[in-house]
């Protein structure tokens, strides 16, 4: 094609050329920004209004959903004599003990499986087999074994926390960039040092997401384990249920939600501290 034969561009053609867009904003939604800002609190606000008006006018029965005033009363009643704190402490002690022991055990077993082929052969099949049993179903067995004290509850939580940490540790080790290990090998780094300075740091992000998963699972199992106890959030929940005290049930649910959020925040914070090399600017 000869360049000279090309007709000169007309003004109209100039305007038809594709518009330039900024990269990374291509997927921006068609909804304008100000409307988006309004959309986010829309549903919660509607729900809140429905709750307040429904309970005040009496169209929502007390037993289904108590009003704001009743909830406030329940909060006051539960906090007044520090009762809820006592229950919270009992629950946290159980969850903490279970999470800690189970987490450490899962992590250690994961390290053995991930780092040695022998461990992989020996441990992994058994753990995979046990994992097929739902942890909640094991509560009965644990009660038969350990009685109704603290032991079965902590054991249940420990078991539930161990699996995600085991799986994430093994997965993290398997995903380590072997090319880095190779480079370290040519530079004469001994196997043990390679594990400490390359494998473990590379596995940490995966371990942290395992911790987050384990934390939420342990809170979940806490509810079930505390159905047979005299203290703890699960006990408060059951008490509210048996006295038809819906307000108390709802307050306990709120505490669970707060607890979950707090734990997640804490783990994220610890993660940021422990993994400084995955800063925001380097995260994909």
């Amino acid at each position, binding site marked *: 094609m000869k360049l000279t034969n090309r007709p000169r561009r007309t003004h109209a053609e100039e305007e038809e050329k594709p518009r330039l867009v900024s990269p990374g904003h291509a997927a921006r939604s068609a909804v304008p920004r100000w409307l988006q800002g309004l959309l986010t609190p829309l549903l919660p606000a509607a729900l809140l209004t429905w709750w307040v008006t429904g309970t005040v006018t009496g169209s929502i029965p007390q037993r289904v959903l108590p009003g704001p005033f009743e909830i406030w009363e329940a909060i006051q009643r539960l906090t007044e004599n520090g009762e809820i704190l006592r229950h919270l402490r009992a629950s946290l002690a159980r969850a903490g003990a279970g999470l800690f022991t189970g987490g450490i055990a899962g992590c250690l077993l994961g390290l053995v499986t991930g780092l040695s082929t022998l461990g992989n052969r020996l441990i992994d099949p058994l753990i995979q087999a046990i994992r097929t049993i739902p942890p909640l179903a094991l509560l009965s067995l644990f009660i038969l074994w350990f009685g109704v004290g603290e032991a079965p509850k902590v054991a249940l939580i420990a078991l539930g926390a161990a699996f995600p940490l085991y799986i994430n540790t093994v997965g993290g080790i398997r995903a380590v960039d072997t*090319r880095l290990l190779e480079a370290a090998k*040519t530079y004469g780094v001994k196997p043990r040092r390679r594990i400490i300075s390359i494998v473990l740091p590379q596995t940490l992000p995966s371990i942290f997401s395992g911790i987050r998963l384990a934390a939420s699972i342990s809170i979940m199992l806490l509810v079930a384990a505390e159905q047979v106890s005299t203290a703890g959030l699960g006990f408060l929940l059951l008490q509210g249920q048996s006295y038809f005290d819906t307000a108390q049930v709802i307050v306990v649910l709120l505490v669970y939600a707060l607890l979950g959020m707090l734990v997640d925040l804490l783990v994220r914070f610890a993660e940021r501290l422990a993994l400084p090399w995955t*800063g925001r600017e380097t995260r994909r």
Partner: protein
Amino acid sequence: MTPVHPNSGHTDQPVVEGAVDPSDAAVSLRGVSQSFGNRSVLDDVHLTIPTGQFVALLGRSGSGKTALLRILSGLDPASAGEVRVAQRRTMVFQEPRLIPSQRVWRNVLLGLNARSRRTDALACLAEVGLADHADDWPALLSGGEAQRVALARALIREPQLLLLDEPFAALDALTRVSMHRLIRRLCALHGPATLLVTHDVDEAIALADRVLVLADSRIGLDLRLDPALDRSQGSSQQVAIRRTLLHALGADEQTDLPLASTQTELERHRGEPSPP
């Protein structure tokens, strides 16, 4: 006098006139073969590299250059043949391979004993022009910067054999030229045998004492370059060697001549000869 001492024999006789005493060699390969499955990548390779020699290794993609370097570095065993290499050797890979969880200066000290100090790392980083980045995380470096850190990591150990697998591929033309100077200077200073894998014929001519071309699983060409050679881009000697190498690589004569690399262009603009 011809500037070139082409290997008169074939791969069976790679050691040309004036060959050094093998005990002084950094690399000695006898009948080395490498195959993956039933695919032969290297076949009966003989190679001796004396201490202090700078060797460039050319070859098309997939010709087995990396495979050869992996054998020399001790990462892969050869499937046949005798491999003898200097004890202290370091390798710069095609990718930087820095450890993301360690700061740049820590990466430079990788594998050195605990007594090695930060000041040593800083001095070495300064040599590759990265003193300011000593405390950065590797993920924040540009590709070329990361590759230079990898180079510093290889140089700080003062190896007897330096294996470089296309270390300059990610660098811009200017940085490349300064890296060439740096490498030549450091090699002259510490005198390691250097084996540089490259795709760039001009780079090979500019830097090397000797150029090998890997083709059909063998060292198809083994060229000694006279130290007195006029290596400036476009000189008659340079062009002649260039043609020989491209021919050995199997490049088509018609298409190869206009293919001047960016480095070539740059040097021509600055009227500067390549480092001898």
